[in-house]
């Protein structure tokens, strides 16, 4: 790609874009001004709908459609989801650190479209230093009259508040995030009602991912047709791919949606560390099934519609590469440790199931399990899936199901060691 659209600080001449004057000199907040002074909220929603922008937080829901679902009650809120808690995701942090005003402008346009006069940026607790910087950026915007009362001499007023989470994965789930802003324990709410109807403080609320919002100023300034020309028909626009694990050059890669795994891993990221063989891909951090490093997988485009066809999810595109040295049952154990630690405990299958699966995987990995335990692991995962209050419970089973199905030999090795070990002790 010749021009970075989201990671604009990487463009020559735009390195200082985190500085407000620089951002303004590069046309910053022109889209926002145009929106506030010349457009109706509905017109903004229509443009974003037409652009085909889909949520970058993981679910890939069409953003403009989400905005149009707001119930006809006021006040309303918009919330930027900067919790960025999926393992292997580090895109929102770079955006907020290096190109914060484009994100804030997107949030502000979204607020106008939602007719919200209060917006929140919910950041994970570890972002406390970054949040302080962002708060100073917001103060600058207030000083310049871009936020505050009667912006651009219109009737529109807007303030942006920052809220820090306390370190829970589940607060990346939008309803738990809203609970957290309200000062409650971070646990997901029942849906329906959805935030668009009863969100923050039970009022209509839009929750969008940071990266999603960062796309919005571009769509306004360059038009939906231009935006649609990037990516594929159903997955439009640029996407930051967070590549980690055994990549030679891990990091954030901004590409159009629709490049293949192979292009990303081998053309852009230089292949696998130490030129080892790629064994598996975790395309969406801890929450989506492992993919085997087959040609079919490597040639699959990174889009919301293509990855499900091969049995996984694009999610937030937090792609973790596992090379031939990795024992997948170990990777599953680490994944399960994460979910066991992060389960909020609200619903039974996730709370108890992740705890149980973690212990089963622990026993398998320490060569103390039998085949029956591997079978039981699969059954427990089956007991969890589809029965939980929020998607996190289902996520927790992905590594188990796909691990056992695709990399059974890794599990078998542990069982064999356990059996041999036993035999040894019997004979001695």
């Amino acid at each position: 790609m010749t021009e970075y659209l989201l990671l604009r600080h990487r463009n020559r001449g735009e390195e200082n874009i985190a500085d407000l004057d620089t951002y303004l000199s590069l046309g910053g907040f022109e889209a926002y001004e145009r929106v506030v002074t010349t457009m109706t909220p509905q017109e903004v929603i229509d443009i974003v709908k037409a652009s085909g922008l889909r949520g970058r937080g993981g679910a890939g829901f069409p953003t403009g459609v989400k905005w149009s679902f707001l119930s006809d009650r006021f006040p309303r809120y918009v919330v930027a989801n900067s919790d960025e808690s999926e393992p292997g995701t580090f895109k929102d942090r770079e955006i907020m650190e290096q190109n914060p005003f484009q994100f804030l402008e997107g949030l502000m346009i979204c607020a106008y479209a939602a007719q919200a006069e209060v917006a929140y940026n919910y950041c994970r607790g570890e972002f406390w230093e970054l949040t302080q910087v962002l708060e100073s950026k917001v103060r600058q915007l207030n000083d310049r009259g871009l936020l505050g009362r009667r912006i651009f001499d219109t009737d529109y007023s807007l303030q942006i508040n920052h809220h820090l989470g306390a370190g829970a994965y589940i607060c990346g789930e939008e309803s738990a995030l809203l609970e957290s802003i309200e000062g409650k324990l971070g646990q997901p709410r029942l849906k329906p009602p959805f935030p668009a109807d009863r969100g923050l403080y039970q009022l209509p609320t839009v929750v969008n991912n940071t990266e999603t919002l960062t796309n919005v100023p571009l769509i306004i300034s360059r038009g939906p047709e231009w935006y649609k020309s990037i990516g594929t028909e159903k997955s439009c626009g640029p996407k930051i791919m967070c590549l980690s694990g055994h990549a030679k050059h891990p990091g954030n890669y901004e590409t159009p949606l629709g490049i293949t795994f192979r292009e990303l891993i081998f053309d852009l990221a230089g292949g696998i560390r130490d030129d080892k063989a790629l064994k598996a891909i975790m395309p969406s951090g801890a929450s989506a099934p492992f993919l085997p490093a087959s040609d079919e997988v490597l040639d699959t485009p990174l889009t919301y519609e293509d990855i499900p066809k091969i049995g996984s999810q694009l999610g937030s595109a937090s792609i973790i590469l596992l090379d031939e040295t990795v024992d997948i049952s170990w990777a599953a154990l680490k994944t399960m440790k994460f979910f066991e630690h992060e389960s909020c405990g609200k619903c039974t299958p996730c709370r108890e199931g992740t705890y149980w699966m973690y212990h089963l995987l622990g026993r398998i990995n320490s060569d103390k399990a039998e085949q029956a335990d591997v079978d039981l692991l699969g059954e427990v995962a089956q007991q969890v899936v589809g029965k939980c209050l929020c998607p996190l419970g289902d996520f927790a089973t992905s590594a188990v199901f796909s691990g056992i199905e695709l990399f059974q030999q890794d599990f078998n090795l542990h069982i064999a060691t356990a059996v041999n070990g036993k035999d040894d002790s019997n004979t001695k």
Partner: protein
Amino acid sequence: MTESILVNIDDKEVAVPKGTLVVDAAKRVDNDIPVFCYHPKLDPVGMCRMCLVEVGTPLRDKETGEMMFEENGQPTINWMPNLQTACTMVVSDGMCIRTTTSQVTRARKDVVEFLLTSHPLDCPVCDKGGECPLQNLTMSHGSSESRFLLEEKMNIEKHVPLGDLIFLDRERCIQCARCTRFQDELVGDSVIGFDERGRSLQIITHSDPGFDSYFSGNTTDICPVGALTTTDFRFGARPWELAHTPSVCPHCPVGCNLHINTRRSGQDGNWSIKRVMPRQNEQVNEIWICDKGRFGHHFVNNSDRLTAPMVRRHGELVETSWDVALGLVSEKLQSSNGSIAGIAGERLSNEDLFAFRNLIQVNEGSVSQWPGLLGGGDLVQKVGVGVDTDLAKLGSDTAILVIASDLSEEAPLWWFKVRQAATKLGASLDKSRAALIVANARETKLDKIAKYCVRYNYGDEVRTILALSHAVSDGNTGIMGSIAANDNDDVIAAAKAISAAKNLIIIYGGEGQSYAASNALAQACSNLLIAKGNVGKKDNGLIPVWTHCNTQGAWDMGVKPAGVSATEFVADADVILLAGADPVGDGEPLPENSFVVVSELFKTKTAISADVVLPAQAFVEREGSYTTGDRRVQRFYPALPCSENVLPDWEIFQRIANEMGVGDVSAGPAAVMRQISLQVPQYRDISYENLAAVEEQWPDIGGEDSYYGGTGFQNTGGLGVQTLSLIESGFSVSPGDVDPIGLATGELLGVPVTVLYDRGSTFVKSEIMNSRISDPYIEINVGDALTHNVTDGDMVSLILNGKERELIARVSNDVPQGAVLIPRSMDGPMLRGVVPVNINTIDHGSKE
């Protein structure tokens, strides 16, 4: 009535109101969908996942919206891919639900298995064992084998006191949040909550003292496992060993229906009360009781109880036989020539009061109610709240005015129900809220949920009602208000709400009231109700917040307050008969030369100085009936055996009458009630039979399916019968004159207030509650405290009823300037209204 829709549950058609949840719809056709977190009184949360069912909706043509049909004519059903929680799914027209498929059966088994991975197998020592939802549902849905390794089980604390009253076993907790939701939604005391997450998610308390709520005991009932237990019952008995008796709470005018669990000790053979539980009566206490009712029963088996009749011989009270004692009493009565004064306590049953009044009246003496602090009982008989009113269900067409009452302290369950009406939190199909207007001289807990708050100075209660009435009438004197609201915006706003409401209920209490003042207040309230036409029908009328459980019964039985102190009332009497009354203990001495007869439970100060003392049975040892403040006559039953040497009050008085040849002893309390029904018009339709009648109540509590509503008790002892108000009986009632009240004046005014945890003789003996009962105290405003050199916690002295008292001073912003709040029943002389007081500090900082 809400619109009814048809749903199909396991191929059975069911008609249920729109908005019903699938789990409740199934319950109505006896299809028990198992639940843990769901509770029919709470908002659903869908946490435990036990209630998963298959749900489908009729498929409709996308273009036409028409239903689509199979070849066999049945609607085509679009089954949802995942199982759905029946507790969160609201029924829709034509919805199909399957609860017996292998998928559902499997899901139930799975969830039970998950819950048991962390739950200890300590059923053999668990208080809940035998009435435990988890135990029952494990038997019906669980696996008989464990696939979870015991050594992988998380071991956590098992004896965590959440406060003095409630213990938590963290291993047993299944994180259903019923307890926290009960506190948040229904009580509004958010003093417990979850801490941590995942498998470590656990209940903690964040109040000091721990679990500081008047309703904490209820959480142990709705806890679907043995995680929450009461200090009182903990490890005290097994549920299947307990005998069950329906009863009625004797602590306040609400009349909560109780269930008394007793057990005979294997060691000494004595029966004792092991626990007190709520008994379902949706109109009265639903399935809840306050902690005073739950734990305040220990007076019954207190060692101070009187066990035999006593007469004074040579200056000493000595035990004697009933024949001797009653012979002496009848002799004195006969020779007194009608110079008899009878004082009967408001905690006596209707039967006692009736027999008492008859005995005094045939001897031409006079009777009075004790303590008889409040007036208006006659007005309650006329314009009391309409039959079948359920405070919790009042909606937006109703205004509720509460005046001069801290309802949360005086009648907790009424506070609870008024809160439901004003907030509609919890599970309520009808979310329209009643307009709550709270008028008081100070902020009380009700203010938080009130739509309008009206402040006045103590003494201005009647004037406030008159001003409200004036504003309601829009300045026309058609309504009795003769006092203009002037610029009091709060009064005007409240008046607007009253005018706009179709229904009006006025609840008046006794805060800062004298007998005369509350008479005038009740009259002013009645006048407003009558003038606005809010009388004689459901959801309308007057409710008194009496200080005792059977004050209304006393009024109805013709035992009315004298309006003066006991000392003044008995001044000229040769013989004084007292029952359930301790005027001496409350600073109202009796003349030394009178012959004093006392029927009592305890050796009260009055009993100690009496000439004859007659031991009476406590409410759990006998049958009887109480009448609530909203005129519901309710029957209670004997739960404990009682010594033959101790008699029910009614029998004592009938025996005396019999001894004197002026009456017979009835065959039993039912026969006394028959006499009451013949003589007291409002009670003409009341009999022990119809008091015992029950009908189906919703939600369905008790029985096999304890998981649904918690460990609660089905009402098998009767729902009681509300007496008709005079106006409901067809009499016309017109407004009466409001007698002006002289106001007390002084720099500081002592204001009598009611607190729930008082030092009354029937409560303070429950030792479990002692840490929650304050030492005698007063409350004083910050500014006044400064003026009088009083700091918070000081020991101060003040003269009350001519006697010096020493109490702790609490300094508070909530007390109005010039007022000194003096809680009733705090070991001290009783205040019969607002009195001027002087305060002197005697010890700075004596109380930490």
